[in-house]
């Protein structure tokens, strides 16, 4: 009882300290930097009280699935249109051969291009908007995380990781807008040209574009992860040594109360670490809430395209299947690009948490 009575002021002090630190780091700007949709999904998450990541994660996914239109009807409608074209062209292919079959395949691919391109264009815009929202959110999140990490005793690592995360995420969003999205659109056009005209040049160009997009995404992801981990580990070790050295110096140089001052500084560091953890969890949940709706919408389209490819393969419409497979790949590329942006933010948060709370 006496111990509990003694602990109460400490707990109150710690909570007050946490709120004070949260106000100093301007954590309120984090919620404001989220787009309205994402803010609704995150709900009333409090940085000072914190919450369990798993529960919030499930709650966000449930809210996204139940409370928003994921474009299921539009996807099914497009699927039916594609099935109609596949069936019609299959009937046409069954009674024609040679040049006549070629003309039918050109008409079928053209029709499918018109059906899929408008939907794909809106998906690309959705992905670009999500990536931009994520960049805006990360511009608020990463400085707060870096400040919280610096306050918890890892100034060098936090500065280095902040620089790497910001540079890579901005770089990826710029690369996406300037190069990847135009290439993804060009991939769809090349796929249609390859299926309709059967010219080797289009096929080679299409394969080159595919390989380039895959390689760019892989390289940026590997480079970012490796760079961030190495920076975090190397600078984190240096920070840990500095903190230990400072504590040792304080406790040995200052007589009598040296160890008490050293322990008190440890309490402040622990408070900052708790805040860092809350901000890190909020960062991951915020990134999830920004990406979940575009991810589900694009993922649904991807599944629909996958089913369409299987159906068209059953009807043995070779060129039509090949074009649908290209559309499926195009949707997959859009999905991969926004997942890559999301992973950048997730990995940054995890690295800050990992280095900040060893």
């Amino acid at each position, binding site marked *: 009882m006496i111990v509990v009575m003694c602990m109460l002021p400490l707990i109150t002090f710690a909570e007050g300290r946490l709120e004070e630190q949260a106000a100093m780091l301007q954590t309120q700007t984090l919620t404001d930097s989220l787009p309205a949709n994402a803010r609704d999904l995150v709900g009333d998450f409090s940085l000072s009280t914190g919450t369990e990541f798993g529960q919030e994660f499930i709650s966000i996914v449930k809210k996204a699935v139940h409370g928003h239109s994921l474009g299921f009807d539009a996807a099914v*409608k*497009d699927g*039916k*249109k594609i*099935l*109609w*074209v596949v*069936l*019609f*062209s299959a*009937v*046409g292919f069954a*009674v*024609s*051969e040679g*040049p*006549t*079959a070629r*003309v*039918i395949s*050109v*008409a*079928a691919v*053209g*029709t499918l*291009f*018109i*059906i899929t*391109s*408008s939907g*794909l*264009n809106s998906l690309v815009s959705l992905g670009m908007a999500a990536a931009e929202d994520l960049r805006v959110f990360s511009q608020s999140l990463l400085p707060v995380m870096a400040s919280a990490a610096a306050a918890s005793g890892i100034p060098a690592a936090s500065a280095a990781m902040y620089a790497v995360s910001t540079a890579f995420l901005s770089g990826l969003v710029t690369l996406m807008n300037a190069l990847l999205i*135009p290439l993804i*659109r*060009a991939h*769809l*056009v090349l796929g*249609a040209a390859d299926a309709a005209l059967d010219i080797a040049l289009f096929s080679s160009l299409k394969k080159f574009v595919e390989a380039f997009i895959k390689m760019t995404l892989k390289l940026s992801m590997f480079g970012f992860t490796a760079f961030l981990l190495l920076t975090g580990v190397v600078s984190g070790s240096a920070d840990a040594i500095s903190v230990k050295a400072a504590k040792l110096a304080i406790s040995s140089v200052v007589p009598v109360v040296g160890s008490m001052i050293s322990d008190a500084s440890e309490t402040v560091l622990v408070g900052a670490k708790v805040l860092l953890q809350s901000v890190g969890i909020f960062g991951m949940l915020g990134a999830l809430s920004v990406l979940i709706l575009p991810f589900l919408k694009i993922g649904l389209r991807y599944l629909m395209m996958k089913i369409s490819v299987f159906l068209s393969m059953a009807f043995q419409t070779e060129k039509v299947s090949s074009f649908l497979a290209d559309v499926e790949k195009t949707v997959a590329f859009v999905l991969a690009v926004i997942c890559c942006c999301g992973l950048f933010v997730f990995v940054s948060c995890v690295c800050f948490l990992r280095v900040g709370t060893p």
Partner: protein
Amino acid sequence: MEPMVKLAACGIIAVILSVQLKNRSREMSFLISLAACTVILFTGLVMFSPLADFMNRLSKAAQIDHATLGVLKHVCAVMVLTNMVSSFCRDAGENSVGQAIEFCGSLAAAGCALPLLDAVLENISGLLGG
């Protein structure tokens, strides 16, 4: 199943008769095969009706825009007709007529597909331009 058995029987009888008459009267042989093809085609159209019904239901459910998808219908119809008529001509030994029909069929199909090509080019410029 039953209509297909009847069609198969009709096809075999027509082929036997046509082969038998080929050496005596080429004209009769050709007319028999033409008649058999017409009968088989019309019966085939009746067999196609369940699939056509399904596709109609599908087009209603998907609210298909007939301005775009109708082009595919026309192109398929033109090309199937072209293919059949050119096959008849070749069977009758008139290869040049068959080839001319194929050429005209391709031109007619290209004419039908022009609105589709317009729409495709518009979409491509929209995709790559925006």
